[in-house]
């Protein structure tokens, strides 16, 4: 709540002004029935209407109405201004925090969760807290005003309204608590339907190929029918509070009307006053209903604000040094590092490695052996629990993460492309690359061949998942991206896993040239790419079990040798 206040603080004067005007507007809408009642009292009978008095009151009504409308327009505009600005700054800060989060935070949350905090929760907070608060404020004001006016007009009947009206609230509450059950049911079936659709629509081609789409329709209809039954209950029961509370209001209206009229006969109240009184009585329930609605919205907003601030307070990446890694040569010295993702199960234990500039290190081993963890540590996506990594003789923690990372070029197995043109995607690491440079790089990686054939060539727009591009083509784009920026160290994590062997063969030359004089770490399961490396690390169960050249490891006859014998390479050789 306090953090939220910090966001609202700059707008406090504006909020106060808005509240003031909201108050004026509420007062104005309350005042109209009073004056209208007075005009009725001017209309005593034929020939006895006090026209000058009437005109005077009417002028007042006009004035009050204009003031009220102007005030409500001003306060509405101020509120919109504040809410859109607050939402935008909440979002900006949340997004900023997200881009600075430590990778362990990002990895431990689903992207959908973090995304909905930045997008949906920010909206809910801005709309809920601000608009909700101003509605709550004017609602309370209206209720208080109404009570005051009611007592002013007739202290005798006022208690009837004031005491009875909250009854309608309880009725509404009572019914809506009943309908909650149906809502939960509806949410469940909707979830079921969504999951079903997701699975089936994504597999539509397969279902079609198996002739199973007709059965899928039947299964769908079953869920659809259940949903329809459940929704019917939920919708119907949720629609009951309104008529019921209206019914209670009408009863009160009747009671006030009857009592008031009887009272009027005895001269306790004028007809005009009764008119105003009835107008208030029928309008009295509205702010109560609004407040109940606003209350749930406010509660929701507070929850959302909690989620949003939780995101902003998640652990960011901490800078441990402020030196810039410049003129990097590429000597890497890893000394006795230990690392565990969950601080329980060690992923890497006591690992050391020393490589000189330009060396090529291959990391092989079965899935889950910790190969990718090494990449995470080199890039400082994660920091080792103990031990150190040095670049050119300096501990990497002395460098800023940014400068360290820009010394590395990284291609991952999981290709990542963004919505934008092919060109945008290629120049990610180097925004100012010329067209010639781009084409040249793409020719080296053979990506040029397929880009050329896309509808708009390098300007073809891609969707986030790369659209119709095959996995191999996407990998070629990612490799081209690195070719364009060429930092002094390279990390290739299964970079060519989806590229067919022949194309891979064709781009070997380009790869060799790229890797020349660059310290390179290659994670691969295709052993053909590994053989020529200067050092091969064979990892298993988080430990580097074997370390040496291809020949040495084969001769040693350990895990690498076994893997090598079983691998597709061997099959290819053996025919």
């Amino acid at each position: 709540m306090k953090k939220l206040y910090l966001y609202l603080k700059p707008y406090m004067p504006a909020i106060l002004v808005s509240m003031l005007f909201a108050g004026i507007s509420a007062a104005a809408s309350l005042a109209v029935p009073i004056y209208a009642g007075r005009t009725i009292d001017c209309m005593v009978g034929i020939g006895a209407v006090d026209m000058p008095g009437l005109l005077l009151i009417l002028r007042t009504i006009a004035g009050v109405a204009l003031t009220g409308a102007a005030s409500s327009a001003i306060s509405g505009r101020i509120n919109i201004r504040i809410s859109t600005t607050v939402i935008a700054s909440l979002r900006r800060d949340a997004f900023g925090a997200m881009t600075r989060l430590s990778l362990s935070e990002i990895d431990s949350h689903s992207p959908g969760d973090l995304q909905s905090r930045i997008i949906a929760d920010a909206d809910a907070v801005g709309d809920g807290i601000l608009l909700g608060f101003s509605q709550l404020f004017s609602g309370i004001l209206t209720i208080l005003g109404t009570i005051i006016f009611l007592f002013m007009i007739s202290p005798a009947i006022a208690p009837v309204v004031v005491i009875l009206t909250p009854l309608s609230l309880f009725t509404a509450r009572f019914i809506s608590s009943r309908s909650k059950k149906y809502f939960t049911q509806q949410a469940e079936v909707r979830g079921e339907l969504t999951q079903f659709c997701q699975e089936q629509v994504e597999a539509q081609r397969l279902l079609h190929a198996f002739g199973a789409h007709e059965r899928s329709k039947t299964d769908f209809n079953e869920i659809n029918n259940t949903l329809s039954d459940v929704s019917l209950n939920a919708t119907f029961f949720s629609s009951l509070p309104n008529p019921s509370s209206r019914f209670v209001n009408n009863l009160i209206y009747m009671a006030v009307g009857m009592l008031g009229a009887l009272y009027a006969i005895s001269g306790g109240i004028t007809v005009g006053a009764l008119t105003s009184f009835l107008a208030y009585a029928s309008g009295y329930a509205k702010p109560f209903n609004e407040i109940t609605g606003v209350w749930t919205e406010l509660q929701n907003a507070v929850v959302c604000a909690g989620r949003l601030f939780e995101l902003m307070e998640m652990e960011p990446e901490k800078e441990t040094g402020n030196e810039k890694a410049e003129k990097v040569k590429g000597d890497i010295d890893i000394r006795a590092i230990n690392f565990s993702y969950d601080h329980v199960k060690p992923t890497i234990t006591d690992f050391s490695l020393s490589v000189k500039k330009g060396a090529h290190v291959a990391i092989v081993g079965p899935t889950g052996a910790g190969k990718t963890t090494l990449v995470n540590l080199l890039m400082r996506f994660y920091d080792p629990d103990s031990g150190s990594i040095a670049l050119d003789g300096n501990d990497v923690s002395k460098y800023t993460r940014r400068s360290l990372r820009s010394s590395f070029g990284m291609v991952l197995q999981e290709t990542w492309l963004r919505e934008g043109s092919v060109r945008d995607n290629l120049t990610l690491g180097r925004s100012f690359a010329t067209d010639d440079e781009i084409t040249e790089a793409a020719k080296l990686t053979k990506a040029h061949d397929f880009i050329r054939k896309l509808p708009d060539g390098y300007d073809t727009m891609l969707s986030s998942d790369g659209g119709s591009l095959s996995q191999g083509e996407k990998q070629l784009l990612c490799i081209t991206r690195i070719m364009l920026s060429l930092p002094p160290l390279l990390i290739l994590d299964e970079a060519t896993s989806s590229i067919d062997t022949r194309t891979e063969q064709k781009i070997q030359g380009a790869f060799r040239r790229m890797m020349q004089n660059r310290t390179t770490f290659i994670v691969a399961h295709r052993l053909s790419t590994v053989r020529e490396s200067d050092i091969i690390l064979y990892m298993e169960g988080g430990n580097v079990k074997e370390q040496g050249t291809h020949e040495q490891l084969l001769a040693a006859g350990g895990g690498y040798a076994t893997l090598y014998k079983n691998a597709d390479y061997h099959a290819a050789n053996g025919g």
Partner: protein
Amino acid sequence: MFFLLKYIGKYKWFATLAPLFKMLEAIFELLVPLVVADMIDNGIGKNDPQHIIICGLLLLALAVLGMAVSITAQFFAAKAAILSTKDMRRDVYAHIMDFSEASMDKTGASALLTRLTSDLNQVMGGINMVLRLFLRSPFVVFGAMIMAGTISLRALALFAIVIALLGGFTAILMHTTIPMYTNVQNRLEGLITLTRENLEGARVIRAFVRDDKEREEFDRRNDRLRANAYKAGGYQSFLNPVTFVLVNMGIVVLLYTSGLQVNAGTLTTGEAVALYNYMSQILVELIKFANLIVQITRAWASVIRVREVMEMTADERSHIPDDEPFDLSCETAIDFSNVTFSYNKNESRNALEELTFCVPKNSTLGIVGGTGSGKSTITRLIRHAYDASAGTVRLFGRDVRRVSDSELSSIISNVPQKVTLFSGTVAENMRLGNKDASDEEIIEALKKAKAYDFVMEKNGLATEVAPGGTNFSGGQRQRLSIARAIVSHPKILILDDSTSALDAATERALLGELMAQKELTIIIISQRSTSVSWCDRILVMEDGWCIGSGTDSWLIKNNEVYREIVEAGR
């Protein structure tokens, strides 16, 4: 509109009764001021307490009736809205399921999913609201006007003017703000895309040290969204004040003329009160109405999105079905003659160029080639997922265009590159193409696909498959998907790079089992020459052209590209 009416039309009774009952409710509500006027004029005016009590009881009766009809209306409205959306959802789903592969490739699953779920939920809410409230407001507004007319014709004119002014104003406002809100929605989508990209690509973005640029971009989009939302909201915030002023000005004029009329004796005080009450009712109703409009606009946008799906062509292929059965004794299982194909008619490049080959019954064909060489396209044409642009594809002597989809799926099983398993048990997954398959048949297929052992290690046929099959390894998933294809007893089995995650020994054993199967023509697509080397015949594809065909040993001797592929595998 027609689209919507078609669905609501089926429930026209519910759909007409709901607003009808709402109208009754409005009428009962509108009678209240008349009763009050009577109470004032005849009760208070004539000092008649008994009359006042009668009027009070009348008010009570109106309240009870009002509640009864209102609840009935809600019931009918809910029924009409839910049942018609149910039908709509059913049809949309069926339509999507009927999509040919080409249509599916074009639209993509995610766009369809939002329409099936959130859009249709919006539509349901929208219909319900329209039936329940949207029509109530005009009843009350015009009803109040007519009731006022029964009291005083001059008041009728005044009411008409106020309503016309308000209607005009609301219409202009809607007209200006709807495009603004669409704009806001689009900008928001841009923001969502950027956020998602940054979450999924966190590593790459940091590796390229782009986080500052990403923040700049976010700020830019965020600010544009804010500006748009502010503009739209600013316009919208005029609605209530203007309504307030207009109605109150109406009240001023009304009270003034009433004063004159009461003075002249053409109107009683009670009637003046009634007129005033009607004007107030209009105000309350219109403010409710204005808040509804935003929701209705959103629902309408969803209706349009749903309709778009229904208007998409489900199937662009040509079908000339005949009733002839397959002549499975035909010696040629697959026959391509001069087949040319392109995915996009405007594209200069063809995915397949003048391809001619045939596959004898019960033989095996391997297809190798690089990324984008046209391998998978061949299988798509065999399965008639697309029409050939030129030339004919025949299966057992019949043009594929003459074969119905269900017949095709009964003789062909395709194992695609990307494995899809469904949540449910292994047995349920296995019965996808053959729902009556016995447990024995399934076990036999699992054994052939070398999947039996690991399935039995878990929980046998009853093993639960997690969504996406994540509780099986990549190689296990591939084997399950091959087993599933065998359960359908196909005559033609297509393995589209579907053994890539298997080690060489398992792959060989599996393919050996399949080859031993009688009455089965097998097509194997691979990037590795080892997976196809033992096939009866191998096609070598490059850039849409078939640049060589023959056995492994012949191709190694005579085909440069094939040799390169073999070399590359080493």
